């Protein structure tokens, strides 16, 4: 793997649940992120997938230091940023920027595009001398494919896709090394999604960016990611290269997730084996014992309620080789191909 720029170890974020107004008493906690480890290499894209409530957005906020973790470490170039404050923190933050999901609420409606994209320079004046900022903002707009003449317009004069470009331009302003993108295209129309994905791909090559790309759309994540981590109820349950996860999943949750995704090929209807999970995701305030997926798992046995499976290469694959050998937090991991391989190849075009 490329030299790591970000190492996350044992990351935990619990939100306390309290009762009472005068004498606040903690009665439990929402375990939004409950022990997450991963490494992000330079110039690499790590995709994080999972359903709502799995903690993927909380991970994004923790990485950008918008929230403080309950425990764990986030090391940027070897330095734990969770311990930093003041000047040192500010310096690190320049290098980790965020692109938000909703381009309608993440841009201030009373600021012009120029002010929005240039605002990072107000906070980090050392990044660009005052006289140079206007020029840089125009350059950034050009880089993300917007007309630099739009610099004095307001967000409402732009479409969703254009607004997302503005958000990306703001994220790029300080020349960060890492961009954390939380569902950057899910609010956009299908025909515009591809434009924004292409833009992010191009920018990554141009500026040597590392991406943490969070999304629930599995096909988009596969397209853009080098490695993929699947989250369930605050933990990563399986992680590996895109081929390992999509073509050789060994965790039953990943298998169910992949099999549930509608495939844009009507001929695949009959060929597909679908795993329909029963029930809903349990509350993160009341996580099942043992394996947290066992309440919905089609393979669950008694042992699953007693033992917490670790995220590692499962024992049965210890002496094996090949793409099925990757980290999977399941006591009964086995490979199961759920997406027929050939169907991707015979689309139109």
């Amino acid at each position, binding site marked *: 793997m490329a030299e790591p720029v970000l190492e996350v170890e044992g990351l935990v974020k619990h939100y306390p649940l309290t009762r009472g107004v005068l004498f606040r008493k903690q009665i439990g906690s929402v375990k939004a992120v409950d022990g997450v480890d991963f490494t992000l290499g330079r110039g690499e894209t790590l995709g994080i997938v999972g*359903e*709502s409530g799995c903690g993927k957005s909380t991970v994004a906020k923790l990485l950008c230091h918008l929230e403080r973790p309950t425990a764990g470490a986030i090391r940027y170039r070897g330095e734990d940023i969770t311990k930093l404050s003041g000047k040192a923190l500010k310096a690190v933050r320049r290098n980790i920027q965020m692109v938000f999901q909703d381009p309608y609420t993440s841009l201030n409606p009373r600021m012009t595009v120029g002010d929005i994209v240039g605002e990072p320079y107000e906070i980090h004046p050392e990044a660009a001398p005052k006289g140079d900022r206007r020029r840089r903002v125009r350059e950034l707009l050009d880089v993300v494919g917007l007309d630099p003449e739009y610099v004095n317009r307001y967000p409402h004069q732009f*479409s969703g*896709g*254009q607004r997302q470009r503005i958000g990306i331009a703001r994220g790029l302003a300080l020349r960060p090394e890492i961009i954390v993108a939380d569902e950057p295209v899910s609010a956009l*129309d*299908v*025909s*515009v*999604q*591809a*434009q924004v*994905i*292409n833009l992010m*791909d191009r920018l990554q090559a141009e500026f040597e960016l590392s991406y943490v790309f969070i999304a*629930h759309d*599995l*096909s*988009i994540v*596969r*397209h853009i990611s080098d490695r993929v981590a699947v989250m369930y109820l605050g933990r990563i349950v399986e992680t590996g290269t*895109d081929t390992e996860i999509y073509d050789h999943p060994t965790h039953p949750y990943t298998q*169910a*997730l992949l*099999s*549930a*995704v*509608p*495939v*844009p*090929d*009507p*001929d*695949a*209807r009959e060929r597909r084996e*679908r795993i*329909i*999970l*029963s029930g*809903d*995701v349990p509350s993160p305030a009341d996580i099942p014992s043992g394996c947290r997926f066992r309440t919905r798992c089609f393979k669950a046995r008694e042992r699953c309620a007693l033992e917490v499976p670790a995220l590692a290469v499962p024992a049965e694959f210890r002496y094996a080789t090949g793409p099925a050998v990757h980290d999977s937090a399941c006591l009964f991991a086995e490979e199961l191909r759920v997406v027929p*391989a050939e169907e*991707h*190849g015979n*689309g*139109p*075009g």
Partner: protein
Amino acid sequence: MLLEVRDLRVEFRTREGVAHAVNGVTYQVDAGETLAVLGESGSGKSVTAQAVMGILDMPPGRITGGEILFRGQDLLKLKEDERRRIRGAEMAMIFQDALSALNPVLTVGDQLAEMFVVHRGTSRKDARARAVELMDRVRIPAAAQRVRDYPHQFSGGMRQRIMIAMALALEPALVIADEPTTALDVTVQAQVMDLLAELRREYRMGLVLITHDLGVVADVADRIAVMYAGRIVESAPVHDLYKAPAHPYTRGLLDSIPRLDLKGRELYAIKGLPPSLTRIPPGCAFHPRCPMARDVCRTDPPPLYEVDQRRGSACHFWRECLDG
């Protein structure tokens, strides 16, 4: 034919001028058939459905032309009380956001029972029993207890099941589902779509499925109508359309789906943006974004050409498009 929409036109008066939301939409649905209406935001897919159901806000909306034939009878000519009798009993709608579609201050049992009391004159007690049956039917665990719960006490997937139960309560001949699973997680989405397909088969309903998701369409639809700027630009049996689209917009949508063999390369992207409904381009509305556009496309709006007996395409050059 169960439902036939003919040349429907709807506009909205807005501050920026008249928005032409639906500009001559024609489609049919037969009993037991699933028609997917595919389109992006602003394509007019939901407005058409609202006009069919008779729940369009008028004003600002206005139906300026066309017919909506339900079992041969033009709904637009009926009085409101006659339409109300049809709505719910013979045609029903499932909305995207169950939390805002259900009444938050009534228990789900009361809301389900109301369907029988109002339309069928069933007694309260019997209606309550029917409500429990229905909740059981859409596989809500412990239905007999949960019938007394309020909508906010259910998860998103369970709420969507309740809405399906409500739509199917009186066994309507036609159900319109407007993005029924868009707000749900993938694994729950699969559960709900499965349930909907099963009930449709059982009751032999006609289903109009409104969606923007090409994957969902491929999974459940028999036929598909693609909408762009208030018009149907292509209509075809679903297998034919995915194999060889006959309209450049459909082709663009299919090509922009990330595919395994194209990983690491640039995705195909339709250039530009969907038009504003107050300023729809002259000629073919898609021409500013179309890679095949020629002079005639800028001036002459294409009719829905007959590709074969079961297919239509609103492109002057559908033959070229079909050939790839």
